[in-house]
Each structure stands twice: as C-alpha cells, then as structure tokens.
C-alpha cells in the first residue's frame, strides 16, 4: 500500500529526516511516535505530497507520490484552522467531494452520511466555530471519511482537545477504521495513545530521525479505554515504546 524508501529531508542545513524506510500494508492502522521536533509532521507532509522531500521516494500502491495523491485524506491537528469558518459544517464536509465530480445533491447526501458516522448528524447546518473543539475535530474526521480515501493521514489529531474528548476520538478512529477498508497512519507524541489505537507502532528517533523501533500490537479488539489499558500486554508495549522514544536501551 504505502512504501517509503530512504526518505531524507533537510530544512537548510538542518536535517530532519535521516533516511526512513517503511512499508505499510493495506488496512493497517499504523501509529508513528517520536519525541517532539523529530520530523513526524515532515514525514506526514511528504506522504501527503504537500512537501517535496530532499531525497528518497514514496510510493502509494506502487505509484510514486508526485503532487497530492487522489485517494488520500489528511486530518490536521489544528481543526479550527483546517475547517473553513465561512461554510456550514455540511458544506465543509461536502467540499472535497467536488474533486470526485459528484452532483450537489450527492455531495450533500455523502456529507450527511459521514456526519452521522461521527455522531454529528444534528450539527450539519451549524458553523464550525459554533462547535466545541472535539466536535470540530469530528467534523474534520467526517470530511476525511466522506472523501472515502484509501488512505487517511492523521497529524496529531487529538493534540488540542481535553483528555475525555481525546479518548472519545480515539475510539471513534477505531470504530471508523473498518468502514471503507482504509489504511490509517496516525502521528502522535502520546505513547499510550499509539499503543491503544494502533495495530503497529513505529518509533522515530530525534532529528535527524530514523526508525528505532517497529512493534506489532497484538491487543484484542474491540478495545476499551479502561480494560485494554489494564492488560499486561498493553503495559509491556507502553514501556517498550516509552524506552524507545527516550532512547533508553531496552
């Protein structure tokens, strides 16, 4: 599905990505963790085609990424800037569907469907700034879902919401992942979150970052915020990821 070969990127003389090799299978939910400033966002922006990496190549389904890929949607951390304040919630969700040449009526139906999936069917006519932060991020997720991407990228999607909302949104991602057989890459600096949400966790080192750990998460589904986090397997994985992020030998 996604293949990254020898990816390097520098801003001027500052090297952020120091050679990343990564393969993600279809349908996988991969979490990428790393210390702050390690180039996680640079990696994500390169995959999304928003940034041209200095070196290396990225293939999606065997096709090199040049410009922004068609079958991909991004959910950014800063929902308040990523949603358009001059449009209603439904129009925000429907907008990207213009790329698919859908009629206005079909765009609207799809948008309402996606809003229902994230539990916001009642907010369609509202404006983003009339909603709470967590609800706004749900709208952003609905916008990505409506687009029916083969591939969803999430850049610290729950970094700006409170703890309770964060848990709800984590569960939302787990719930929608199966919907269209999406492959999801979620970037986070939260170790617990990566283990709880992912079925695979890749750990990046400090810049110039490389992959220092690649763990498969064998936790059972459905996951539960309380029960899953109590499992010995969860505790062990969290410790492993934590050591890798801190650069402490395990």
């Amino acid at each position, binding site marked *: 599905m996604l293949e990254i070969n020898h990816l390097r990127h520098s801003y001027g003389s500052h090297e952020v990505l120091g050679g990343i090799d990564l393969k993600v299978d279809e349908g996988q939910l991969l979490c990428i963790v790393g210390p702050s400033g390690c180039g996680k966002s640079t990696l994500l922006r390169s995959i*999304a*085609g*928003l940034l041209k990496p200095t070196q290396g190549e990225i293939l999606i389904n065997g096709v090199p990424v040049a*410009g*922004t*890929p*068609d079958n*991909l*949607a*991004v959910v*950014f951390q*800063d929902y308040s*800037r*990523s949603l*358009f*304040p*001059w*449009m209603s919630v439904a129009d925000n969700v429907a*907008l*990207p569907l213009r*790329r698919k040449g859908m009629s206005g009526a079909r765009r609207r139906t799809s948008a309402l469907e996606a809003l229902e999936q994230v539990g916001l069917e009642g907010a369609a006519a509202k*404006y983003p*700034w009339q909603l709470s932060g967590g609800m706004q991020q749900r709208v952003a997720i609905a916008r990505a879902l409506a*687009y029916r991407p083969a591939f969803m990228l999430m850049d610290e999607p729950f970094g700006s919401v409170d703890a309770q909302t964060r848990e709800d949104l984590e569960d939302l991602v787990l719930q929608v992942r199966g919907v269209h057989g999406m492959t999801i890459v979620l970037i986070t600096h939260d170790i617990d979150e990566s283990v709880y949400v992912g079925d695979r966790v890749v750990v990046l080192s400090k810049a110039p970052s490389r992959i220092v750990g690649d763990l498969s998460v064998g936790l059972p589904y459905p996951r539960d915020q309380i029960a899953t986090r109590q499992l010995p397997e969860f505790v062990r994985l969290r410790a492993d990821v934590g050591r890798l992020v801190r650069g402490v030998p395990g």
Partner: protein
Amino acid sequence: MTVRKVLRGAIGVAGFLLVAEAAGRLGLIDPTILPLTSTVLGRTIGLAADGDFLSEVGATLLACFAGLLIAIVLAVPAGVALGTLPKVERATRPLLEFLRPIPSLALIPLALFVFIPTHNAKIALIVYACTWPLLINTMYGVRDVDPLAKETLRSFGFGSLAVLWRVTMPSTAPFIATGIRLAASVTLIVAVSVELVAGGEGIGAFLTHMSTGAGNMDFVLAGTIWAGAIGLVANFLLTGAERRLFRWHQERVGGTS
C-alpha cells in the same frame, strides 16, 4: 444599552442645535453671516423635495458609484495578485509607496486636463482615491489567509486555482468589504471637491452656485447637511452589511483576541 446610547447621542445633537439657535436669536452670532438653526433645518427639509437639488445629488451619487465600481474591478484583482506574488509586490512597491501619499485632491488640475468632460475627471479621481484602501486591504487580506486552510484543500488534491477561489477569496472577502467601506467614504469627499473646483453637476456644484448669491448661506448649509447625511447612511449600510455577511469573521476575530 444601545437605546440609551442613541438617546444620549440625540440629546447631544439637540443640545448643540438649541445652543446654536439661541446664539443666533440672542445676537451672539450675526444671522446674516450664519443663519439660524431653524432656518437651515427648514431649508434642509425643503431641499428633499426640490427636484433640481435631487438631480444634483443623483449626479454626485452616480459618479461615486461608477468610480467605486471601477476601482473594485481594478484594485481587487490587483491586490490579489500583489498578495499572492511577492516578486511582483516587491517590484511595484516603490512606485506604490510614491503614489499613495499624494492627496487625490492635488491631482484635480491634472485630471481636469487629461479627462474631458469634468464628469470623467471626477470619476477618474474617485477611482484613484478608492484604489488605495481597496488595494491595501485586499493585499493584506490575501497575505492573512491561513496556510493550513490552503494546505487542507491542497491535501484533497485541489489545484492552485481552486485554492485561490475556494480558500483565498472567501477568506479575504471581509478585508475587501472593509476596503469597500473605507473607499465609499472617500468617494463623496473627492466627488464634492471636484464639483466645488470644476463645477458641472453635483452637490459641490450646487454649493458653489449657492454661495455666489448673497444671503444663500442657509441653502449652502442645508446642502452640506445632506452631503453629510448621505455619507452617514452609506457608512451605516455598509457596516451593517459587513456584520451580516461576515459574522464568521467577527466571531473568529472575537474568539482569538
């Protein structure tokens, strides 16, 4: 709260008018030089039914509208271009910085010489004066567009033109609206000034004409009051439209500050 504000303002205006009236009646001000308030107010009301005066007002407003419209058509795209193309902006900046401080009224002789008849010169100067607030506001509005909003649309595979149309323009619209409001307030000043100097038709020409006849100061003042009232109404309407259309912008600005 707002009722109280309006009431207080009304009391202020009424008080001023009463003092002026009293000063005239008590002989503190010579009524042959400055007519009584009551006389001026009477004339003001009378002018509203005066067909000749109304056609002068129409001529001024027509020039204002035409000039503003032409300026919008020219300056908004130019502002978008300058805001999105930093190289063009840098190349034109010295010229713009030189032109901008020139008072548009100082260009009246030039305009009257270049554009014939007077009516065209008036519109040309209005266009010139309106260009600045429109150009500058549009330019800053475009620069103010959130890069993440543009990136969001790009990430869904939209091209630069789509991003310009669907993100940059709506996001800049409130700034353009402010530019239009500021420009509109300038149009009346420029129009009346050109009419005062060059005659022709319009409120300014009416004022010049009236002031040449002795004892017509009441008409001059009444005409001035109408000019002020038109400016006030225009500003009120545009401010209201801005609030209504760009509530999302106000909410946002209010939310972050």
